[in-house]
């Protein structure tokens, strides 16, 4: 793999990380497999696109996407999921239904055309880096992925909320028993996870574009990342993203015939023999 392909894999991995980290936070702490996560990504991208084009500001687009999707996450969690708490299967299938609704709603609002989030002037064009000409925006995505990782690491390891989340991932009942309002921690986590999906949508929307089936595609990748990396582990998501991102790029270049197999083969094998993933902990 040459430098160019390496960067391609890394930048895709960075985007996957932003999206999948949100997914694993919710999966890890709340034990909810949120199959609407992909739809949140797409919806966030569309909303961010609308805000960015109307205001001319990419930053406002980011903010708009994150806030809007956190709000939708709030509706999903407090408005719908509260009725099926504790039942894993019902939760999963409810989020699937929600995904259908969001996807169709997006089609109604924005139509089926492909949209691309406009890149801010300063990030356009390319730069010479390690001997290749590489689009600056993609490098920005890579940097953002690293920043998000650092921010989440800081949150999880150096704040009280983070400590509660980590404890909750290990044993939610215990945390509740020690007098903490676990419900509020859960809600904040859900909002954060959703906001990350929205941010991912906006960022991805600038170089992968937004279109009606983008939600299913990113969801499938996120699932692979979280399963390979392990439930509730930040390092797991990081490693999982790297693996999936690099494998995907490598697969496209070297084994185009086996496009999906390159990712799902390892994922299936891993699930069969080490269901908790590389860094996951037992529920």
């Amino acid at each position, binding site marked *: 793999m040459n430098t160019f392909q390496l960067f391609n894999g890394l930048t895709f991995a960075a985007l996957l990380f932003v999206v999948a980290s949100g997914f694993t936070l919710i999966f890890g702490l709340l034990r909810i497999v949120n199959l609407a996560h992909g739809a949140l990504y797409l919806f966030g991208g569309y909303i961010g696109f609308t805000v960015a084009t109307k205001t001319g500001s990419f930053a406002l687009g980011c903010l708009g996407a994150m806030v809007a999707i956190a709000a939708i996450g709030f509706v999903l969690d407090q408005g719908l999921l509260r009725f099926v708490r504790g039942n894993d299967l019902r939760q999963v299938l409810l989020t699937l239904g929600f995904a259908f609704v969001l996807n169709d709603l997006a089609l109604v609002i924005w139509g089926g055309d492909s949209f691309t989030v406009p890149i801010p002037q300063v990030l356009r064009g390319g730069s010479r880096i390690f001997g290749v000409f590489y689009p600056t925006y993609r490098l920005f995505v890579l940097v953002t992925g690293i920043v998000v990782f650092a921010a989440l690491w800081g949150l999880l390891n150096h704040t009280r909320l983070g400590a509660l989340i980590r404890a909750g991932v290990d044993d939610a009942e215990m945390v509740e028993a020690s007098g903490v309002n676990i419900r509020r921690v859960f809600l904040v986590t859900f909002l954060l996870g959703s906001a990350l999906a929205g941010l991912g949508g906006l960022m991805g929307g600038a170089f992968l574009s937004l279109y009606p089936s983008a939600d299913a595609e990113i969801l499938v990748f996120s699932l692979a990342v979280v399963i390979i990396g392990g439930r509730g582990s930040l390092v797991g998501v990081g490693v999982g993203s790297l693996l999936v991102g690099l494998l995907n790029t490598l697969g496209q270049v070297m084994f185009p015939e086996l496009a999906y197999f390159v990712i*799902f083969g390892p994922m299936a094998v891993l699930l069969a023999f080490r269901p908790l993933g590389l860094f996951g902990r037992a529920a």
Partner: protein
Amino acid sequence: MMTVMTQATSQSRTFAGMTGRAVMIALIVVAVAAALPLVLTNYQVGLATEILIFGILAMSIDILAGFAGRTSLGHGAIFGVSSYVVVYATAQAGLPPAAAFALGMVAATLVAVIFGLLAVRTSGVYFLLLTLALGMIVWGICLRWTQVTGGENGMRGDVRPEWLVAHRAFYWAVLAGASAVSYAMWRFVRSPFGLTLLGIRDSESRMRSLGYNVPVHLFVGFTVSGFFAGIAGALYAMFNNFVSPSTVALAQSVEGVLMMIAGGVGTLFGGFVGAAAIIALENVVSAYTERWQMVLGVTFILIMIFTPEGIIGTLRAMLTRKAR
């Protein structure tokens, strides 16, 4: 219905494992179903045929979900593999319909064996995700292995034999098949093996401590479930004379699970009811709006919140409440 049955079996005479009452109910249902083509249009007969086919698929998923406590999102792939093999055998290999049908069933069972071997050690959400991933691999193969599967374009074939080309004839053949398959599945879940599966669903640790080999039981259950999904897939190939990657796609698995849930997890025959409800709903909704996907999503959400036991399940609950 099941508790009544188990009581009755020990008290009255049985015919092929069914009480006199059960036989009567079954005969009435089949007779009514057989009479339908006399009052329905060709198009509606086609819909009824589809309901029967997808009912079988939903029931096959229920064998695992309702009776072993494991919901699979990969049965669409098993179903679709059977369709692919049947169309391929007919169109490319020139085999007669019966042979093609048999091959389809074998292929589906083999896929189920592979899925089962990998999946039996997991449960709950991980089982769901693993079967999803395996289904995606199958889909990817069908999509990319263009030489054999036709890739994106799919494959067409004249799968239906001459005497089944007419709507009604095919419907009656499918009805016969569905009746036989339903009976077989019903016997299976009520057999000692089936009861063991129920035990595993209720408490795996208890079954293990009682000495049952849980993974082996699950594996066999998975294989049997795949076998029946394969029958549905072969019938579907005959119905459409066409197969494409969307037949093995995740959406197909999701639809099967939804039909099973709408009918009622663990009710077995709820599969037909769920299939009928979803297909009828789609037909009605599409006449008024393009937003079928949204309606489907809302239906999913409402079912999960209000009636997770499904139609039959809710009816049963209401009846037992009245009985008290």
